[in-house]
């Protein structure tokens, strides 16, 4: 049965960190982006504030790009082209900022430096009221909470397999999603998602002092990194030194520093994994470090 794919309600923090895609083998089998919480996402239903839109095509053949903020600091990226005629017509009449909802398919693309980005191709984009926006935040928070609990249930089983999950009452697709997520990303950090739920509840209940007792200083993943050479040069060179020192320290056997170890140490030094990525790129450009293979980074 070619039943229509479910539209997942999820926050950008979950969608944008997904990097693994299960490609459909033929026209009829759909592709899925697998999130850290095990959602196999082909279609999404998201809402928020359209903060900017731009026609990067032409007057005759528009190609719209836009950014929708779901919660403070989180953004969905949308692309509307000629194959989304309904959405293309609709977005032309929507001016930013505006509350909007989008139903669409997710697509990933990989940059030259191997980073994966997720964007949405809307089938529908419509203006909504603030009330419906709050309703969506609630739905997405509830659904995130359910996935978090299901993931917890799954990881409680030792060496969990798809079959184990089906026996435990998961449907086949969800079981596949969870095992794929665990294979690809490992056990997810629940604090990240609890923080998102906390932000969602604070948005809906601004007067209530919502506090889940989570570490406040956890670095929010920046949605885009624009390191401008001039402005942050000083700061950067400090960070570069820190990383270079770490590389030397972690290179115990001459093979270089293992990436996962480097990431952990960098994080304790207050450098997020995305910043680390950026800094190591700069260092590679400068010819100070190289990658003997994908898992290692070595100082020259």
């Amino acid at each position, binding site marked *: 049965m070619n039943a229509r794919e479910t539209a997942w309600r999820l926050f950008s923090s979950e969608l944008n960190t997904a990097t693994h895609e299960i490609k459909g083998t033929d026209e009829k089998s759909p592709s899925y982006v697998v999130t850290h919480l095990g959602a196999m996402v082909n279609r999404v239903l998201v809402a928020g504030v359209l903060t900017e839109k731009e026609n990067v095509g032409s007057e005759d053949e528009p190609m719209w790009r836009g950014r929708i903020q779901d919660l403070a600091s989180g953004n969905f990226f949308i692309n509307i082209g000629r194959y989304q005629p309904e959405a293309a017509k609709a977005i032309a009449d929507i001016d930013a900022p505006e509350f909007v909802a989008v139903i669409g398919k997710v697509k990933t693309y990989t940059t030259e430096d191997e980073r994966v980005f997720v964007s949405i191709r809307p089938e529908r984009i*419509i203006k909504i009221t603030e009330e419906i926006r709050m309703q969506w935040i609630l739905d997405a928070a509830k659904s995130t909470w359910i996935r978090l609990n299901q993931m917890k249930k799954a990881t409680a089983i030792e060496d969990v397999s798809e079959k184990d999950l089906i026996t435990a009452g998961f449907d086949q697709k969800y079981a596949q999603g969870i095992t794929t997520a665990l294979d690809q990303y490992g056990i997810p950090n629940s604090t990240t998602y609890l923080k998102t739920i906390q932000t969602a509840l604070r948005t809906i209940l601004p007067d209530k002092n*919502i506090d889940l007792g989570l570490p406040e200083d956890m670095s929010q993943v920046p949605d885009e990194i624009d390191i401008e050479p001039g402005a942050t040069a000083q700061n950067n060179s400090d960070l570069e030194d820190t990383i270079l020192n770490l590389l030397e320290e972690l290179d115990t056997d001459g093979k270089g520093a293992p990436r996962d170890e480097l990431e952990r140490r960098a994080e304790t030094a207050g450098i997020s994994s995305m910043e680390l990525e950026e800094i190591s790129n700069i260092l590679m450009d400068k010819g100070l470090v190289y990658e003997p293979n994908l898992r290692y980074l070595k100082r020259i």
Partner: protein
Amino acid sequence: MNTEELIPHFEEMKKVLNGKIDDDQLRKELDTYLNAYHVTIEAAKRGIMRKYGVGDTSSFVTANTISKKVGDLKGNEMNVDITAKTVYVDKKEITVRGNQKIIISGIIGDETGTAPFTIWEGENVELEKGEIYLFKNAYTKKWNDRVQINLGSRGKIEPIKDIKIDVTEKTITIDSQDMKIGDIHDGVGNVTVSGRIISVEARNIIVKEEPKVVYSGIIADNSGKIQFSAWNDYGLKEGESICVKNAYIRAWRGIPQLNLGDKCEVSRIDDSFGQIDATASKKTVADIIKIGGGLDISVTGTVVDLRTGSGLIKRCPECNRSVLNDQCTTHGQITPVLDLRMKLVIDDGTGAISAIVNCEDTTKLTGITLEAAKGLAQAKGEIEVVGRDMAPLIIMKKITVTGNVMSDDYGPMMIVKSANIEKTDVIAEAEKLYNDVEAAL
């Protein structure tokens, strides 16, 4: 696989290997195959047999295949030989991707159990009921928790003489399983259900040119309701509660129906159903996809799309079918009647369902009346404008719809009898979620 589960395989192999390797060596081999390489037990056995040269002479390994009793089939065998007696055989012609094809299906069994089978290349195969055959190079699958035996192009059928097989008793009357009415779906086989008769009427029909009376109606328990047809007169009355043993299920366009056939037993029971919600049973879309369809089902979800064919449409005044231009496929050139309707896609986060909403409910949900729609269409000189204007009024609305659901290749579809905008108290629900999360941390 743990040690305990391994014991029967270990013993079986020991017998076949007949002292060619000692126990420790065999244990080590099995451990290597199963735990270091994670292959299936079948593959492990085959590999070890091959290695120690007992493959071709073995009692249970022939070339690459393993022989199994019907009752031992797991539903994941890739290549298996089965010697069994045919309990039931049916040859039929089906269409596969536009090509006519003859398949043979039925039931085979031995003293350990029975299972349905399908021979996919049935062109030159003749099977007699009650005879014993070797099904060579078969593969098995699991469907609705039952093992199915398949014989594809690699498969072979060989009649076996000189042996006797007694098919187990329980197979002849296929297991009847106790079920709640709401859980019944197409393909469950025989069922035993209890429920209260909501309605019943006698209908005269013709079966194989013979007039016959069937008693059909609706029976319900607190999980749902289902249409039934009794092919014999059990004196069923509205309002009484009955237990139906050995009824069978047939589905029409995904809607399962309960049939009380010749093997069926009906007994009166005490009514323990209390208040049966005769109006509708609440389900998620995932539930509906699982059962295929049903009567008076309610579902709540968000409207995620308005499909073409929504808004102002033209209908044939004779047959009420929707028409394009002014041509009816049955009645030719007509003067169409205008009507308002919506073809919605509703998604509740567990799946998506199509829903067809009539004129009255369309007005209720969108505020657009038939008159207003006609006026708008006239002003713009086209009728499609109505559907376009309607989309932003209904998409993203959370609604509850109730009606009969059926399924086809594109998923479930509901003919909506009633529809309402769902009002949620976001603040209260957010507070509830906060409490849930806090309590769990």
